[in-house]
């Protein structure tokens, strides 16, 4: 039987090579021309602790990590016990027989991973033993694997040859070992190499690259999972004259640092997660009222307070759109794929400059740590409009009128007061009612500058549409494709611009009988925001700390569509 994709889950203790094996498999496969996508969870402790990572390899472009596991690689008994339910009935279990013996499950095959690695003379080749075995199960040709090993370890160092040799030996022994078992999953269809160059990267890395492509100049951050990797990358790479990246002492310092830098004319960004985002509340309000461009990336995790630091959720939308006291509504972009992480970051920086204020870029743990192949972005197509800067004389009225006005930059003409108190044209504090009316309307009018035209729509004639946001896009689109195949009468809409929504899309949505929004939170936050804008929206919610399964979405959308259609007929 020919398969178009297969899913492997690696489970064990932190430090046993769970993540490196999964990422190694993904890299090997993309090297061979397949598509790959990983889903990682973290152990909650520093050393050890149960953890798992899933890799899905496919002939086609991938949207989700896959519902059913074809192969479970169990590094210990607990991993088997925890994950066996997710393995499909005719799947295969590879267990590390150097760690434990799996009894009573005919699907199991013991691979003495460490012994085989040791025999190559390179203990660190253990994950190659596993990858070799996996490749055999789906008949992936050996030369693909060897190509990968050669490419990866040819680094111009003295020991390269020996490392390449031992890794290839590890692949071969894993393969030969499992061959004796007779276990087999079938033929993975041959890869169709995607056109053009591809990059293999994580969502957070795509955000880093996108923001630099947009001309980011200043970054300040405070370590917090799952946003820390952005801070570390920036400290290494946002360097050189005119650039500044720094670990500050709290998220309050992060946001206020950006305020100072944005005021001084720079493109500035920070990334954080829920707890840090909450600390930025007052600063975001200051950015809004004083009209200072800056970008805050919220890499969502789960729950309030410390919550679920290593799980995924989409529960910060309300907090991101309405983060501060006073009449404030932040522009929000929520990315749904690794590729959108790149382009969303560019857009967020551009928006901040365009309307002179704070922008929130939302992403989530599952995207942050997801490794995926994407087409290499074409930088020549990246265009970021510059901030409107004031170049006239002194005595300028920075906050005059009801609309955006050019912004003076310190050092240049037009000295003014950037003011977090309500102010007059010059920026001096005032309490006159007419001023508060003017400035409030001015601030909201600028949001119009961010209205975009583009959004995704399919089968616009349907009265019921399925519309995910953020990281639920992947599983939702995969579910939608199945629903479409089954002729379930439901259309598709998607945008990463959550505030403001593209006006044409909003018009479209208002015409619908029902907009079904899958989201990873209890309250149905986006559905509720849509309803407040006159859209008949209902949420499909999940709050397990894990992403949606495609099958669940298919079932729930089918149910909702059926019952709504019955009602429609009655009415």
């Amino acid at each position: 039987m020919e398969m178009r994709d297969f899913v492997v889950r690696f489970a064990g203790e932190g430090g046993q090579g769970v993540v490196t094996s999964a990422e190694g498999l993904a890299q090997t496969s993309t090297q061979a021309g397949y598509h790959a996508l990983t889903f990682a969870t973290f152990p909650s402790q520093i050393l050890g602790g149960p953890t798992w990572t899933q890799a899905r390899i496919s002939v086609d472009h991938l949207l989700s990590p896959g519902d059913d596991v074809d192969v479970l690689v169990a590094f210990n008994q607990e991993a088997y016990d925890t994950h066996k339910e997710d393995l499909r009935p005719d799947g295969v279990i590879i267990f590390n027989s150097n760690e434990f013996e799996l009894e009573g499950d005919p699907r199991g095959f013991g691979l003495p991973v460490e012994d085989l690695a040791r025999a190559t003379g390179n203990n660190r080749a253990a994950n190659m033993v596993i990858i070799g075995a996996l490749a055999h199960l789906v008949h992936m040709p050996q030369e693909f694997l060897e190509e990968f090993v050669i490419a990866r370890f040819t680094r111009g160092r003295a020991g390269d040859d020996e490392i390449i040799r031992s890794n290839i030996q590890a692949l071969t022994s894993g393969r030969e070992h499992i061959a004796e078992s007779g276990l087999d999953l079938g033929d993975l269809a041959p890869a169709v190499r995607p056109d053009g160059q591809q990059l293999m990267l994580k969502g957070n890395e795509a955000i880093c690259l996108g923001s630099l492509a947009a001309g980011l100049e200043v970054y300040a951050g405070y370590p917090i999972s799952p946003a820390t990797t952005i801070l570390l990358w920036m400290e290494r790479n946002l360097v050189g004259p005119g650039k500044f990246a720094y670990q500050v002492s709290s998220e309050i310092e992060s946001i206020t640092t950006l305020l100072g830098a944005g005021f001084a004319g720079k493109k500035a960004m920070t990334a954080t997660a829920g707890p840090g985002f909450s600390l930025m509340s007052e600063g975001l309000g200051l950015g809004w009222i004083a009209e200072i461009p800056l970008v805050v990336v919220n890499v969502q995790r789960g729950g309030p307070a410390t919550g679920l630091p290593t799980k995924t959720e989409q529960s910060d939308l309300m907090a991101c759109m309405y983060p501060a006291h006073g009449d404030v509504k932040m522009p929000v972009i929520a990315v749904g794929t690794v590729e959108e992480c790149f382009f969303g970051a560019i857009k967020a920086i551009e928006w901040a400059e365009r309307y002179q204020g704070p922008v929130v870029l939302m992403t989530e743990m599952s995207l942050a740590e997801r490794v995926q192949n994407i087409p290499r972005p074409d930088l020549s197509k990246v265009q970021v409009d510059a901030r409107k800067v004031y170049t006239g004389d002194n005595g300028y009225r920075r906050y005059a009128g009801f609309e955006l006005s050019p912004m003076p930059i310190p050092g240049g003409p037009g000295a003014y007061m950037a003011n977090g108190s309500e102010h007059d044209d010059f920026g001096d504090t005032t309490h006159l009612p007419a001023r508060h009316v003017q400035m409030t309307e001015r601030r909201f009018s600028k949001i119009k500058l961010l209205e975009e035209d583009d959004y995704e729509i399919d089968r616009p004639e349907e009265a019921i549409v399925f519309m995910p946001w953020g990281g639920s896009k992947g599983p939702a689109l995969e579910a939608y494709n199945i629903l479409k195949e089954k002729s379930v009468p439901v259309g598709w809409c998607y945008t990463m611009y959550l505030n403001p929504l593209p006006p044409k899309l909003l018009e479209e949505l208002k015409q619908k009988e029902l907009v079904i929004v899958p989201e990873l939170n209890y309250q149905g936050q986006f559905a509720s925001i849509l309803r407040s804008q006159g859209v008949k929206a209902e949420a499909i919610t999940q709050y397990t700390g894990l992403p949606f399964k495609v099958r669940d979405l298919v079932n729930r959308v089918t149910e909702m569509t059926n019952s709504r259609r019955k009602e429609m007929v009655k009415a």
Partner: protein
Amino acid sequence: MSKKNPEYDFKWCPGCGDFGVRRAIEFAMIDRLEETGLPMENNVVIAGIGCSGNLVHLMEGNQPYGFHGIHGRSLPIAFGTKMARPDLNVMVVAGDGDFLSIGGEHIGPQAARNLNICAVIMDNGVYGLTKGQSSPTTKLGEITSSTPYGKIEADLNPLELYLTLGVSFIASGFSSQPRPLAELITQGMEHAGFSIVHVQSPCTTYNDTFEQLKGNVKKGIEPMLWNIPEDHDASDKAAAHDLLQQGGIPVGVLYNDESRPSLDQQVEQMWEKARPQSVEALMDAFKF
């Protein structure tokens, strides 16, 4: 605010110490302008929230850039502005509540970084703007609107705190002496690193300490203020500590460590180790 703005409705109470501090800052800025030839727009004043922070609106004449933000956060805003544009002269003006209470967490990090800005703190030992509550520098036992039975929390010695945190330039001044105070501020601005000029700036409405500060011979009140002797070696931290043990409030330059590079200088040195790469090159790291 260069001329009187009829919409701006905040006024300092008659006799408020902050008038003198404003004058001193104006002196220092004009001196800088004359000395460096750099335009007034090269100066940025980042203000805290309090009666004191309103100084930024009340400056007369040629106007610098101002940022009147949120309570307690003037230091990290200044950090962002200075590190974005090290060529600017960045100054902070704030009260004792703003700087030492809600904003206290930001002093240590800037001291460790040796951020090249000058903070002028107007200490009146009270929260003026919110009408007379106790602040970290309110004296033990004092009755204020928020300590009806007397303050039971020890009062903070800010100069000792700054010295302990490693602030590299520490001066102490008095609002009634704008000229000498301007001298201290100028030195602070010229100092390549984090400088704090801590000013006794009494609140005539809620905590009028002019008499205690200056003393009153007729009433037998000894002045709290005393001038730091000219032979004090400001580069000597132990000597600075000793001065603080003598009681009262010393006036002058307490501590001045010129040996440490400022943060922007250190960042520039760091660039020698760093390898800036184009976005294309950074993307190459992910190709396969």
